[in-house]
C-alpha cells in the first residue's frame, strides 16, 4: 500500500485525508505496507455509502476483496437511510470456523496420525464436485434455511450442547427462504455436509503455547491438547444468493437514489423492500452455513469415535466472518441499533456481553484467526475496548499476501505436501493445484496479524495452535 496516502494516528491505527471519523485502518506498518492499494480504494468507497455510523474500517489481515475489502467492517443505521450491501457480506455468506476441543493429547495419538488423516479424508466430503449424503426435499431445504444448526441437531447431527456455543445459538432469526431463488436451493441439494475447496479446510491442530492462562483454563484449553478447526460456509447456496442480490441491487441503485462508487458495492436501504428481502435471504444463507458446520462436526466425531474410542469432542465456539448483523452498540454514549457488516472479519464480543454463552461472560468471546496449513492458528478473546474501537470486531485469518495466480507459478502442490510432511504436517487433498494456491507463504505472517490484533485492542491472544492434519478441498 502507498503509505504516503496514510496518516498514522498511533502505533496500530491509520487514516487518510478523509479523517478517522470516515476511514480507519488497523495494523502495524509492516502489515499495511504489504497490503494492495486496492484495500485503501475499497474501504474509501465503503465510507461513501449512505447512513454509515462510525468509520469504515479494515482489520490487520485486510486484503483486496469484492467492493468491500476482505477484513472490512462498517456499520449502518436504518433510521438514517443506512444500507445493507450484498458485497459487504460477501459471496460465501457466513463462512466461518467451528472450533472444537478434544480430550486427547497430541503425543498420545501422534502414532495414529496417518490413519486418522485417511479416515477424515474418506469421511468428510471435500473438493470440486464432491457431494454429501444428506439429501433434502424442497420442504426440508426450507426447514434447514429457517432452522440452521438447530435443524441439523433435530436430524441427529451433533449434540444439544453444541448449540450453546454457536453464534445465535445455532439459528439466525429472520430467515426468509421464500426470498432465496430456486437456483440457489438447487445448488445446495447435494452440498449439505461438504467442505468445498479453495481456502476451506478441516484441520487437526495441537495447542502449542498458551498466552493467557486464566482464559485458557476457563475454555479448557491446554498445551499439547488436540483441537479441530472446520472452516467452510454456505456453499453454492450462499454464493447464488450473493450473485442474485448483487445484480438486483446494482440495477435498483439509481431508482433507490444511491450513487455507487463501485458496482460491487451494490446495496439497498435497510428499510426498503429490496433491503428486507436480501436480509431475509442472507439470514437463510447464515443458517445454511451453521447447519453445514453442524453436520461436519458430527461427521468428524464419527471418525474420532472409530479411531480413538473414548474421545470426546466439544464445541468451543462457532463464529462466522461474512455477515451483516443487527446489533445494539453504544455510539457517542447513546445506544443505537445498527447493521454491522463484517466481510472477512469476525465478531469479537467483550466480557459481559449478553449474547455470549454464560461460561464466556467473564472471558469475552472466543475469536479464531485461522492461519495457513503450514503455520498456525490463534485463539483470542474479545476485549471491552473492541466495542468502542471496531463495533466488537477482529481479524479472521492471516490474509493473502500472494495472489492465487502468482502462487501457482511459484509453488508446486506435490512438493509442498512432501515438505509439510517432513515438518510433521499431513495434507490430504484431491487438488495439488489447490495446495499450491494455498501455500503457507502465500499468506501474511499469522503471528504478526495476531499480535497486531492484540496491540490494537481488538482481541487478546489466548493460545496458538499448530496444524498436524489438514484435509483440503
Amino acid at each position, binding site marked *: 500500500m502507498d503509505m504516503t496516502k496514510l496518516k498514522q494516528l498511533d502505533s496500530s491505527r491509520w487514516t487518510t485525508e478523509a479523517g478517522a471519523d470516515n476511514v480507519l485502518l488497523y495494523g502495524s506498518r509492516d502489515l499495511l505496507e504489504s497490503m494492495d492499494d486496492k484495500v485503501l480504494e475499497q474501504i474509501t468507497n465503503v465510507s461513501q455509502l449512505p447512513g454509515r455510523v462510525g468509520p469504515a474500517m479494515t482489520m490487520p489481515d485486510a486484503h483486496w476483496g*469484492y467492493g468491500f475489502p476482505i477484513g472490512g467492517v462498517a456499520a449502518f443505521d436504518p433510521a438514517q437511510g443506512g444500507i445493507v450491501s450484498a458485497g459487504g457480506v460477501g*459471496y460465501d455468506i457466513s463462512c466461518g470456523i467451528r472450533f472444537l476441543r478434544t480430550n486427547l493429547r497430541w503425543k498420545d495419538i501422534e502414532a495414529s496420525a496417518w490413519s486418522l488423516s485417511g479416515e477424515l479424508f474418506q469421511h468428510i466430503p471435500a473438493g470440486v*464436485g464432491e457431494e454429501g449424503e444428506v439429501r433434502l426435499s424442497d420442504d426440508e431445504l426450507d426447514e434447514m434455511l429457517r432452522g440452521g444448526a438447530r435443524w441439523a441437531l433435530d436430524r441427529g447431527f451433533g449434540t444439544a450442547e453444541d448449540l450453546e456455543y454457536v453464534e445465535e445459538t445455532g439459528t439466525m432469526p429472520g430467515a426468509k427462504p421464500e426470498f432465496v431463488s430456486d437456483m440457489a436451493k*438447487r445448488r445446495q441439494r447435494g452440498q449439505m455436509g461438504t467442505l468445498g475447496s479453495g481456502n476451506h479446510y478441516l484441520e487437526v491442530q495441537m495447542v502449542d503455547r498458551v498466552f493467557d492462562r486464566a482464559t485458557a483454563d476457563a475454555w479448557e484449553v491446554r498445551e499439547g491438547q488436540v483441537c479441530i478447526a472446520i472452516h467452510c460456509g454456505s456453499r453454492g447456496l450462499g454464493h447464488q444468493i450473493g450473485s442474485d442480490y448483487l445484480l438486483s441491487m446494482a440495477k435498483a441503485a439509481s431508482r433507490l437514489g444511491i450513487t455507487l462508487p463501485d458496482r460491487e458495492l451494490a446495496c439497498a436501504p435497510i428499510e426498503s423492500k429490496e433491503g428486507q428481502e436480501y436480509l431475509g435471504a442472507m439470514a437463510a444463507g447464515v443458517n445454511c452455513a451453521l447447519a453445514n458446520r453442524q453436520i461436519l462436526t458430527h461427521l468428524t466425531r464419527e471418525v474420532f469415535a472409530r479411531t480413538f474410542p473414548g474421545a470426546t469432542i466439544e464445541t468451543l465456539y462457532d463464529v462466522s466472518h461474512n455477515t451483516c448483523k443487527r446489533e445494539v452498540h453504544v455510539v457517542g454514549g447513546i445506544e443505537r441499533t445498527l447493521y454491522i457488516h463484517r466481510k472477512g472479519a469476525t465478531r469479537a464480543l467483550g466480557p459481559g456481553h449478553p449474547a455470549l454463552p454464560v461460561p464466556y461472560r467473564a472471558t469475552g468471546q472466543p475469536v479464531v484467526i485461522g492461519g495457513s496449513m503450514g503455520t498456525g492458528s490463534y485463539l483470542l478473546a474479545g476485549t471491552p475496548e473492541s466495542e468502542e474501537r471496531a463495533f466488537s470486531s477482529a481479524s479472521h485469518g492471516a490474509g493473502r499476501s500472494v495472489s*492465487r495466480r502468482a502462487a501457482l507459478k511459484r509453488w508446486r502442490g506435490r512438493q509442498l505436501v512432501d515438505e509439510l510432511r517432513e515438518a510433521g504436517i499431513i495434507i490430504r487433498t484431491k487438488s495439488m*493445484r489447490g495446495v499450491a494456491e494455498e501455500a503457507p507463504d502465500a499468506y501474511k505472517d499469522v503471528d504478526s496479524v495476531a499480535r497486531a490484533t492484540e496491540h490494537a485492542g481488538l482481541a487478546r491472544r489466548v493460545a496458538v495452535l499448530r496444524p498436524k492434519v489438514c484435509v483440503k478441498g
Partner: protein
Amino acid sequence: MGSEPASEKFDYFEHDADIGVIGRGATPEQAMEEAARAMFLLMALPSGPEPTKKVEVAFEEEDPEFAFVTWLNGVLAECRTQHIFPTTFSLRHNGSRWTGEAEGEPWDNALEQGVEVKGATLTGLSLAQVDDQWEARCVVDV
C-alpha cells in the same frame, strides 16, 4: 493441474484472493463463451470424450456486462446441478433475451481436480472491444 491452461482465446488475470477470467472472440457472445471455458478449466481438465450431455441457460438482461455475469453463473449452476463438465459453449441473444448451451461429459471425480469456482462476480467486470476483437473479463470467486 499445476498451471493454468491459457490460449489466444482465453486467459486469466490477477486478483489477490481469487482469479480473473478473460474470454476473447469476434463477437461479444464468443468472448463470453471463451470466458466460460476459462472458468471451467480452473475446476477440472476434460478427459477427452466427445460431448454427450447438454445444459441450457436462458435469461433476460438488458445490460451486456450483467448478461456476461449472469451467463457464467447460469451455466455454472446448471452444470454443477446436472453433473456435467462442459467443453463446448454457445450463446446467442435477441435483444435482452439470451439463450445459451453448454455440452460436455459427465462430471465425476475421475476428472483431474483444480479449484472450485463458486461463481462469477462484478469485480473487474468488463465487456469491451480491444483492438480487433471483443474481450469479456471478470473475477470468479474460488
